[in-house]
């Protein structure tokens, strides 16, 4: 059952990711954004399969909810049209595909050859309780640091969105 679900979620995530970056039917950023939201959802599904329930929830809340809404807001705000194809850079596209293909090949070969999962069984339960304990004990300092980072991010955004920015 979980294996089937894995293939379903994994396949859908890959498909939606493909549609995000290389939608053959539309160049609209809105479409890309929506497919990305779908990718996030399927990813959350995969997280659930990995028993990382908290992360899955956060994934939905933060990514699919907050981040992607932000994206859509910006798209609306800027009133972005469909990406017009100014010129078809064959060399660029070819090189891009080759590079990405190469990367994929390297990664896949490494994964397959390394037998990373040999002898390992899925055991860990990513309970919110355990996560919370770790977060507020061992990872307290990074946690606080991240909160400062968010604050700085906020300040940065406020500064950047000022009208008179030169």
């Amino acid at each position, binding site marked *: 059952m979980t294996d089937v679900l894995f293939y379903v979620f994994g396949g859908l995530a890959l498909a939606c990711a493909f549609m995000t970056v290389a939608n053959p039917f539309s160049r609209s950023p809105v479409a890309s954004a929506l497919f990305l939201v779908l990718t996030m959802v399927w990813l959350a599904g995969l997280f659930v399969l990995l028993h990382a329930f908290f992360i899955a929830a956060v994934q939905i809340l933060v990514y699919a909810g907050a981040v992607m809404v932000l994206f859509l807001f910006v798209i609306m705000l800027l009133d972005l049209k469909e990406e017009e194809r100014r010129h078809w850079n064959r060399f660029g596209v070819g090189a891009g595909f080759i*590079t*990405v293909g190469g*990367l994929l090949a*390297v990664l896949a070969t490494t994964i397959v050859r390394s037998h990373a999962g040999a002898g390992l069984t899925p055991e860990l339960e990513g309970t919110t309780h355990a996560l919370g304990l770790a977060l507020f004990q061992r990872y307290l300092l990074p946690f606080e640091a991240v909160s400062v980072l968010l604050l700085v991010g906020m300040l940065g955004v406020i500064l950047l969105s000022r009208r008179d920015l030169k």
Partner: protein
Amino acid sequence: MQPETLAWIILALPLLSAAGITLFTRRNAGLSAAVSVTAVAAAFVASVLLVLSYRGLHIPAGECLIASVNWLNVGGLSVELGLRLDSLSNVMLLGVTGVGLMIHIYSCGYMAGDPSYARFFASLSLFMFSMLGIVLASNFVMMFVFWELVGVSSYLLIGFWFERPAAADAAKKAFLTNRIGDFGFLLGIIAVWASLGTVDFLDLQRALAADPQALGAFASLAGVLVFMGAMGKSAQFPLHVWLPDAMEGPTPVSALIHAATMVAAGVYMLARSFFLFELAPAWPESLGFLSGISALDVIAWTGGITSLMAALMAVQQSDIKRILAYSTLSQLGYMVMAVGCARPEAGMYHLVTHAFFKALLFLGAGSVIHALHHEQDIWKMGGLRSRLPVTYWTFLVGTLALCGVPPFSGFYSKDGILAAAETRPVLFGLALVVAALTTFYMFRLVLVALRGEPRDAAASHAHESPSVMLWPLRFLAIASVFAGFWGIDTALKRGLGMAGASGHEDHGGFLAGVFEPFGHAPLAAFLGLFATGIGFAVAWTLYGSHPVRDPLPERLGPLARWMRDKFYFDEAYAWLIRCTHDALAAVADWVDRWIVAGMFVRGLAGATDVAGRALRLVLTGNLQTYAFLAAAGMVVALWIVVL
């Protein structure tokens, strides 16, 4: 007081005077002169006291007193700031301070009114300090130190009127020419030290006496190198070119430095380090072609050539100071030749008497120049006998002494040199020719410049100089006449530790002393007198009738022009320097500018720049290109690392 204490005082006085004038009294001309004259007078008195107390100690010949403090002591090189007192340095002390005193006094009159009066006396004091340092130095390094200081004070004094381009150029030329000699001198000192491990004269002398082979293959080379120092300072051929130009300095300077004392330092140094030249000839392998020639041969021939060449040049000069300058050159050649003939005491003897009469001649010339408002051309003078009587008579005394007419002091010292040269027939003949030429050009000078009728308005309105300038003339004239009877030669022999130093001590009375040379070395004495007579006769024939122009060029033709133009040494040297040093400098500069800084440095910079420009094309500014390049690079890197 102990002689050592007195020696320190003598050395310190002029230095204090120079420092005091420079730092404190330079705004007050009169006070500065007073300080300087007082210092040198005190040094003279101290020298007299020193000599008296030294004689009281009855130190045997060849021994000496040494006072020293350590100046430098580094791994086997120990240099004392040492003062060496023996008869040799005593004679020089008296000579230097005595003549120096006369010239200081004279300068008070001669330089009166010059805006840089104080600077003149400060430089003069500095010179006295350095010169006394040379005289008293107990080792080679100290001598070299003061040697250089003498060079620099000479530079300052020749270039005293530095606004005049000629004076500034002459000062530079003198210093540089001297430096070439010093180059050899320093290397000679180093070579001696490297073999014997000491630079002290006494230690060196003893070491070489114990083992004459101690210097090994460097024996003659070291001698010749050290002699190069004397060559520069005493203006010997081929480094003689600076001395005539040095006459651009004030006349008292010419008298003190470039006639009486500094230029004689070379001879003094040769006498001081004579033990070095006596060694049997030995050359390093690379200079094997010189084998058989000893250092003394080189010295003797250099001296001989210089004296003849300078005498010939003097014949056709028309500047009164230049005639005297060439005469100085010629006499220095004499002295050097005497040293080269293994008779340093003869050279030193002539040095002392020459100091008196040449200083006298220069000061006399200065008096004439002063009277004629800085006219130096003898063909614009004449008829000065009645107008400048003191100058005339003292000048005549100096001339007679220089020509070697008995019983003037020059006769005795010159006779010693001629006697020394008897062993080398060619040099002896050469010396006789020089004696004849000397008389000729000196009487040419006297007959043209001082006697006869005035040729110029200035000459006919000349007035005798102030007495502050005349008294030194009188004193020096007395010294020039009688210096032959003061036993200077005996003292020198004692100082040099010569055999027979005590044998001649008691010559029977004054008259015997006057005619001593005729008995001692009759050939030299008679031939010398004969040569003098010939010179006088020729001069009288040519110039006795007081011609308006020089009749000699017509008779001698191109030779006269060569003599007048100093055998074109200056031009030849200028050409040589242009072809060597200047050319090297130009090449070095060119290489520096275009090869090192240009091709390599700028080439490297240019190559970097071009590479940068080429790589800049990759940076399109397109974000995606960058992303692509980064990704591609990552892939390649991973590919290499992982697979």
